[in-house]
């Protein structure tokens, strides 16, 4: 899916709000392909909304360019960008019915009323609200309101659709159901979608790519599994999923070994680090398993300090003789072996060890 020209390009975009010393967004660059689902994921205050608002045209970047199909759109006001938008609090017009809300963008575009009728009905049907067309927002549940907002953002076939935590106000079951619906609509209609969330599982299940934000910067932008398996920074590794970060230095680079407090750790073939470089060896808890006896490498002995039982599986924390804490998963059947205070041997595969740079 390579294109000569990226569809939507953020080029070193920065934002400083008036009168503030620090940057809310700092040098964000990203290329977004047509039809792609990109999530902006990050903790509160990391600049996700600000970035989205600059793409939407509601905030002006202090620096940098935003390009759509090769031309700069920074000077184009929001209402001329033809971008659809879904807000966390739905932002439906309270004085209009569901039908009128969805019809509004089409009426503004002066489409003939027969066509408006047909399109609004089709889109309300698509979000499962055909029966509620004549209700006002106040007469709809939160989930129904958000579906109307969805239909309103899609009905005029926008170039790009932007969503800012659209499911943040819904309960867990409804959220998961809507995640699936949004993803299916996006695929079916081939929508380019930029989706802000701070829920990592939401980003993992829905996105083609995730941009992980921290302190106003993108730390990494990649496919969900890539982010999960090969995070480029400690922040990404710890923010997305659980992880064990073991400090060390690259020993023998050709043998791919890291010297750490718990001994030498071998790592997978895909990392390029020179000898002596300070690194983290990252191992996901579910990739560490209980072992009968201590392996010569890629394993250690732990004293169990805490177990959390989830029924089907157990999350176990233990410390090595040197005091390094490791977390791993065991099956429900193995729970007895991992009781607090017991000594256990654990092992992992060298391919499951990911190495990432560590600042001094």
């Amino acid at each position, binding site marked *: 899916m390579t294109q000569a020209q990226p569809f939507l390009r953020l080029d070193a975009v920065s934002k400083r709000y008036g009168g503030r010393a620090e940057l809310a967004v700092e040098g964000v660059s990203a290329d977004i392909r047509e039809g792609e689902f990109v999530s902006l994921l990050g903790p509160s205050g990391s600049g996700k909304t600000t970035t989205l608002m600059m793409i939407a045209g509601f905030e002006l970047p202090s620096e940098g360019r935003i390009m759509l199909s090769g031309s700069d759109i920074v000077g184009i006001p*929001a209402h001329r960008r033809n971008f659809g*938008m879904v807000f966390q609090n739905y932002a439906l*017009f309270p004085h209009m019915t569901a039908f009128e809300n969805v019809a509004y963008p089409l009426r503004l575009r002066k489409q003939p009323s027969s066509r408006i009728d047909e399109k609004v009905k089709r889109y309300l049907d698509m979000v499962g609200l055909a029966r509620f067309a004549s209700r006002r927002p106040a007469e709809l549940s939160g989930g129904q309101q958000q579906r109307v907002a969805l239909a309103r953002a899609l009905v005029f076939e926008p170039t790009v659709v932007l969503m800012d935590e659209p499911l943040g106000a819904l309960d867990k079951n409804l959220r998961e159901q809507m995640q699936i619906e949004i993803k299916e609509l996006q695929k079916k209609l081939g929508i380019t979608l930029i989706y802000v969330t701070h829920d990592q599982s939401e980003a993992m299940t829905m996105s083609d790519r995730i941009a992980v934000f921290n302190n106003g910067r993108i730390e990494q932008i990649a496919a969900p599994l890539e982010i999960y398996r090969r995070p480029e920074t400690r922040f990404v590794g710890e923010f997305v999923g659980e992880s064990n970060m073991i400090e060390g230095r690259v020993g023998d680079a050709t043998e791919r070994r890291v010297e750490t407090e718990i001994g030498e750790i071998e790592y997978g073939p895909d990392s390029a680090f020179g000898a002596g470089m300070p690194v983290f060896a990252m191992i996901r808890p579910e990739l560490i398993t209980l072992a009968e006896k201590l392996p010569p490498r890629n394993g250690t002995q732990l004293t169990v300090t805490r177990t959390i039982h989830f029924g089907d599986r157990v999350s176990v924390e233990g410390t090595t003789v040197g005091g390094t804490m490791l977390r791993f998963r065991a099956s429900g059947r193995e729970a007895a072996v991992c009781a607090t205070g017991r000594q256990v041997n654990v092992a992992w595969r060298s391919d499951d060890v990911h190495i990432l740079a560590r600042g001094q």
Partner: protein
Amino acid sequence: MTSRLQSSLIPKFLALSIGGFLLLPMLLVVVMSFGEGTSLRFPPRAFTIDSYIVYFTSAGWMVPTLNSFIIAGASAAITLLVTTPAAFAFALFDFPGKRLVRLLIMMPLMVPFIVMALAYFFFFGQLRLLNTMVGVVIAHACLAVPIVFLIQSANLKSFDWTLVRASQACGAGHFRTFRYICLPLLRPSFLVAGLFAFITSFDETVIALFISGRAASTLPRRMFESVRQESDPVVAVVSTLLFAVVAAVAIVIAWRREAGRSRSATRDLERE
């Protein structure tokens, strides 16, 4: 048991006596308005509607009444035209000197009426605006601006501004967003603000006494003169009518609140 009875009776008694205390003088006026004779007296000897006929047929009363409506309407319109954009600017933007401008807008609220009346008297004398409706309209608008600005600011504070962004994302520029989203949603509170401006002017006497003169005499001024010079029972008629209008407006507003908003903005949009 007794104490519970007492605790439910006392507030009722208080409410009734306060209501009675406030309403009783008003009721006296209503009764007097139907009294016979050429001067005010209580209790009336006989009941007629003569004074009502006098009020509705004499130019001496009808002209000031009309003047008051024109002046109040014009000054309410000017007040809304000034305060609405100002309130929007204050709600939406930060600009240098914002506090100073706010202070200037609120200024008329801090100056005693009589001081303002004197100031207008001399100032308008030089501008040749004394004894003209335009003069009274300007003075009354200045008086209403701070109050209505406060009301409009409060209205905008409770407005959900993400609706504006939602409308822009739908493709509406500033004008159409104002026309189809802000205006229909804010119309009821704008009307209340306008009503306040109207009443502020309609009710104002001190400044009107100083600057309205014979030519632009307002209803309160005419009433004041009437009481002072002739103790004419028509004053009671005017008071009764005003009281009736205010009560009717209050009832209509309460009733409309109950019925809820039924207008729809997209229907306006469709018509175009």
